[in-house]
């Protein structure tokens, strides 16, 4: 036979009629010989008349009317969806659209920058930004310093410098 501790774990379900047959028989067998558990069961049963005594006021007047009125409004909203003119603006600010536009702008910007740099480099009248040592020497001193035969004179170099200064 079950102990009191085990039996009491099943008393609630027993009182509620929720025990399977085997457990039901065990509880009844125990209750037949255990006054303490029987008293415990009586205590549980004593709650029912108390809990059933609380009066509930009637449903408030107008509650169903309010519910039905709101239902009618929602129904109408479903049938005629309101357009506020803001829908296209909401569409424009879709996250996927914003991300795509940003990426495209970045790619176009880089491409244009690269193109401008390349075309600028290729222009015949543009100043080359890579200057060789030879051309520096030629420009500054009018010397062909790396040439096989030295050309020019000190006087020519001085005059070339003076010309550059003007």
């Amino acid at each position, binding site marked *: 036979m079950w102990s009191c501790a085990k039996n009491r774990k099943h008393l609630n379900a027993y009182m509620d009629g929720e025990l399977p047959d085997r457990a039901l028989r065990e509880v009844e067998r125990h209750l037949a010989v255990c006054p303490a558990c029987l008293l415990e069961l009586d205590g*549980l049963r004593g*709650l029912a008349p108390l809990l*059933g005594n*609380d009066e*509930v006021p009637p449903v408030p007047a107008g509650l169903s009317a309010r519910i039905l009125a709101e239902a009618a409004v929602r129904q109408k909203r479903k*049938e005629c969806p309101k357009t506020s003119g803001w829908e296209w603006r909401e569409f424009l600010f879709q996250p996927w659209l914003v991300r795509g536009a940003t990426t495209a702008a970045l790619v176009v910007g880089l491409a244009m920058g690269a193109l401008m740099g390349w075309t600028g480099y290729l222009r015949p009248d543009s100043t080359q930004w890579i200057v060789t040592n030879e051309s520096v020497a030629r420009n500054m001193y009018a010397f062909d310093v790396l040439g096989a035969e030295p050309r020019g004179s000190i006087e020519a170099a001085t005059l070339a410098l003076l010309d550059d200064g003007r």
Partner: protein
Amino acid sequence: MPDCPESDEFLLQAVGRGDLAAFSRIVERHQTWAWRVAYRFTGNEEDASDIVQEAFLRLLDASGRYRPTAKFRTYFYQIISRLCLDRAKKKQPLLLETVPDTPDPSPDITDTMMQRENAIAVRAALDALPPNQRLAILLRYDENLGYEEIASALEKTTKAVERLLARGRERLRDVLGRRENFF
């Protein structure tokens, strides 16, 4: 049965197709017990009205998706239970210290007044229960639901429901047992 045009399941499917007359029938049929559950749970008319109104409107909004795999009543109990428990989360719990003292047992207190005092004490004891225990107790005693139905309403197992009821009853007996004229 969903095929029976008078059944709740059939009416709710009609609501899903835009039939407001069917919705009106559902409100008329179920507002009394919905009100009873909400009022017994919250203890005040304003909160109970809000819960009942919101429950029916949620039913309306979900009607388009409703499939009669579950009984209508079980489905609606679920909605109401969720709203009750959400409401309880926002409200301050009632402290046990606010349970009224034992009434004066002097002979000039009429039975009616004693009953009234006891009802207030029971109300306070119920309010002091954790919300899920309170709801399980109310669904069992007021709505006479079985463990499986309570489990569906509260979205728990039957074993969990048994534990909720056991603990709720223990606490009620503990609180109410300190008063005279109980047990």
